[in-house]
C-alpha cells in the first residue's frame, strides 16, 4: 500500500502535520498509536480524505541505506506500507515514543539517536514539583527536522512534537516538518 507521507503517531503534532499536508493534496496515512488529546484534529484530517489507522502500532521499518522505504504495523499483518516521507510523532514515555532500560533511553520504533543524561542518578529531581531532567530527553534532529540512526541522518524520516529533545515546541516543530515535506514534494 502506497502513500505520499506516513505519520507515526496521532497526537497533536502528528495530526497537525497530517491535516496540513492532506489539505494541500498530499496523500497521508496516520498510524494513530498512543494517546490522542485532540480528537477534533483527527476528525479534520479524516474529513479531508486522510487515512487513519486507530489503535495500531508500527513494528519496524525497511531501510535502504539512509532512506526509509516502508513500515509494517501490528494489525496489518503481511502488508507493507510504503511512502516518500515518514514522520515520527509518537510522543514521550507515556505514549511509548521513548522507552528506558536500567541504564539508557531509546526510541523503540527505529532506534533513532536519543539525547539523554548518561548518569541515571541525574534522570530525576527528588523535588517532585521541580523541572524533571527526563522530560528533556528525546530524539535529536538536524536543522531540517530529520532524525539519525547510529549517527547517520535518515534522508526522509522527520520527527516532531513531544518526542524531540530539549525544550519542545510542538507547533513549531510540526510547522518545520510540514514545510520541509511540502518543499520537497
Amino acid at each position, binding site marked *: *500500500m502506497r502513500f505520499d507521507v506516513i505519520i507515526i503517531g496521532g497526537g497533536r503534532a502528528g495530526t497537525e502535520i497530517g491535516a496540513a499536508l492532506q489539505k494541500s493534496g498530499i496523500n497521508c496515512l496516520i498510524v494513530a*498509536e*498512543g*494517546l*490522542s488529546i485532540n480528537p477534533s484534529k483527527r*476528525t479534520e484530517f*479524516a*474529513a479531508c480524505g486522510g*487515512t487513519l*489507522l*486507530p*489503535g*495500531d502500532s508500527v513494528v519496524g521499518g525497511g531501510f535502504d541505506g539512509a532512506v526509509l522505504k516502508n513500515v509494517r*504495523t*501490528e*494489525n*496489518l*499483518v*503481511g*502488508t507493507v506500507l510504503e511512502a516518500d516521507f515518514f514522520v515520527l510523532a509518537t510522543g514521550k514515555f*507515556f*505514549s*511509548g515514543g521513548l522507552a528506558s532500560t536500567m541504564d539508557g533511553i531509546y526510541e523503540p520504533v527505529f532506534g533513532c539517536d536519543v539525547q539523554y543524561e548518561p548518569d541515571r542518578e541525574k534522570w530525576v529531581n527528588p523535588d517532585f514539583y521541580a523541572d524533571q531532567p527526563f522530560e528533556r530527553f528525546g530524539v535529536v534532529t538536524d536543522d531540517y527536522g530529520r532524525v539519525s540512526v547510529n549517527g547517520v541522518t535518515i534522508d526522509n524520516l522527520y520527527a516532531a512534537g513531544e518526542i524531540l529533545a530539549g525544550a519542545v515546541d510542538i507547533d513549531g516543530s510540526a510547522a518545520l516538518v510540514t514545510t520541509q515535506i511540502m518543499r520537497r514534494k
Partner: protein
Amino acid sequence: MQEKNANASNFEQCLKCSICTAVCPMMEANPHYPGPKQAGPDGERYRIKDPAFYDLTLKYCLNCKRCEVSCPSGVRIGDIIQSARLKYGRSSNPVRDYMLASTDLVGSLASPFAPVVNRVLGMKPVKAVMDGVMGVDSRRTFPAYSGRRFEQWFRSEAACRQLGFRRFISYFHGCYVNYNYPQLGKDLVKLVNACGYGVHLLDREKCCGVALISNGFGNQARKQAETNLKSFRTAVANGETVLTSSSTCTFTMRDEYSNVLGLDNSDVRDSLLLATKWLYDHIENGSIRIAFRKDYHKRIVYHTACHMNKLGWAIYTTSLLRMIPGVELKVIEQKCCGIAGTFGFKKENYPYSQKIGSELFEALRVANPEVVVTECETCKWQIEMSACLPVMNPISILAEAIDEKETIKLNIR
C-alpha cells in the same frame, strides 16, 4: 511490555489516564454504567479479592472495544470486562438471553417455516407478547429468515461448480448468511470463483459464539469454538485460507477465542481472514486481477463497525472500494451504531441503544448515500431500521461491480 506483567489480564498496566472513559459510547448514554476504567482494570483488583465486588451494571458494556483501541498502555479493558461477566455475571432474563444467543438452534428451527415465522414475528400482537413476556423490544424487527439455508443452496447448486478449480479457500459463512441472508454467501462464491479460486465449506461450522459470550454462556461458547477450531485446522492442513464475510465473527474467532475463552487458536489465527483483506493482499501482490464493469455507479458511505475498527482492517475494504471506477466513496468518522448484537434487542437496553446510535444516524442522513457499506450484520439491521438507508456488505458491492467474464479470463492459470 506486557510480558513483564505477572497477571494474564494485564490490568496493572492501566495508568488511570481515563481516555477509555472518554471514548466509551455507553458512558455517554447511560449514567448508571461506571465506564470502562472502573468496570475493567479498577474493578478487577477488587473482584480478585472478593467476587462480591462484581458490579451488575457491567451488563451495559457493549463489548465494542473502543476502549482498547484508544488505550495508550495496551490494557485489554474489554476483555477484562467480558471475562468478569462470564465468571460472575447472572442474567435477569436467562430464557430470553438463551433464545437470543442460540443463533444456530433458533435458525434451524425457524428456517424450514420461514414464510410463516417471518409473518408471525412481524405481527403486532406477537411483538407485544414478546415485549411483555420475553423482554424483546417491540420496536425491533427480527431479520427475516430465509426458506432455503445457504448451506443447502451451496450443496445443491454451487458445490459441483467448484470441482473445476485447482486452488481453494474455505468459507466460514456464519449464522446470518446461512439462516437469514444467503445472498451474501452467493456473492462471495461468485467473487472468489471469478478470481480463480474454488470455495469449500468447512467440515462442521457452528455459530462463532459472540452472542453466547456476551450473554454469559461461556461453556457453550467454548464448545462451539472448539468445533470451529477443529474445522479450521483441517482446512489449514489442506493449505486453505479460511475466509469470512462478517467482521464480528472474524474478530471473535481471532481474538475472543484466546483472550476471553482461553482457547489456543494461535496455529490457525493467521489463516482466518476477512475476504476483503485476502482479496486486497492478492491484488496487491499481483496474483489476482479484477476487471470492473464500466457502467457501474454508486454513491457509497463506508461505516466502520466497532469490531472492524478493533481489527484495524477497514483500510483494506476502503482501498478495494476505491478501485471501482464508478464508486464515489465517503468514509465517515467511526461511531458506534448502538445495537451491539443482541444487546439492542433487549427491552431494557433499547433506549440506550438508540441514544448511542443517534449521532451516527444523523451523520448518515446528512451524507445521504445510495447505500451504506459495512461488514457487520447487526450494524446493518440497526442502520436500516434507524437511519432508513439500505446497507450492503462490501463483498456484495464487489460482486455487483466486477465484470465477471473479464475477471475470469484474467485469472485463468
